């Protein structure tokens, strides 16, 4: 049995980490519209964007930054639309990631 390591507050590092990860998951759950659970993540995750994002989101997020900037400045694209698209794609990048290992704290094998 490994020794229990605690930080000054008395919490174990596993508790602190679980708390941060819970916070991360909470921020992901704020996505609108929400991303569905993703199963069968391929070795190369890039094609997942085609499967889970809208055509508009794909178009925006695959526009080069030097092309996005003038469109934003002219108001051809709204900052809200661009931000929403990148929020969802960043969420997908993380979700494509859903923990696949058993997350029972008892599992220390």
């Amino acid at each position, binding site marked *: 049995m490994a020794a229990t390591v605690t930080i000054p507050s008395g919490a174990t590092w596993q508790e602190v*980490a679980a708390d*941060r990860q819970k916070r991360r998951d909470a921020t992901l759950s704020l996505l609108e519209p929400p991303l569905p659970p993703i199963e069968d993540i391929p070795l190369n995750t890039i094609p997942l964007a085609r499967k889970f994002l809208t055509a508009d989101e794909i178009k925006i997020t695959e526009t080069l930054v030097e092309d996005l900037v003038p469109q934003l400045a002219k108001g051809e694209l709204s900052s809200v639309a661009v931000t929403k698209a990148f929020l969802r794609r960043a969420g997908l990048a993380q979700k494509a*990631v859903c923990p696949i290992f058993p997350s029972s*704290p008892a599992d220390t094998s």
Partner: protein
Amino acid sequence: MTEQTNCITELLPQRALERAAYLDAYLAEHKKPIGPLHGLPISVKEHIGMKGLDWNGGFVSWVGKVAKDDAHILSILWSAGCVFYVRSTQPQSLMHLETSSNLYGYVEEVRRVLRWANTGYRVTTNPFNTTLTAGGSSGGEGALVGFRGSCLGIGTDIGGSIRSPAANTGLPAIPRLLSSS
């Protein structure tokens, strides 16, 4: 078997959309952009202090330290009109060409050897092949920009921490060193 990319530490949807709405209203009212990067969402490595958010350097014992202000680079980018919408992973202590920490994900073999509890979260991996590393220490940025979850990301580099993830994910990088030769 599927693997995770595990590249972000938190999304910032509320503050980002509020900022984006403000910028849209500004453009509509003043008929000109607020700055050269008006409305552009950019990703920021967790290493870089963001006002009111955790600033832990990847250390479990530093969780709860909160940045009092935005880092200088963020103030500059904010004035230029950027929107901050996501924070990306960093390795514990930052001095690592890999992006693993006890907080957000570690290397599975290390976990097994040290018999740590399995939280199910693992080291940041490469979106092009999740059996490979995204590098580090700005590996969260590398994986995120490689996936196009971001069009422009801010990392930090002393000994290759921007260059290594950029090389691993085929991205251009600008390491602005304090004393570049």
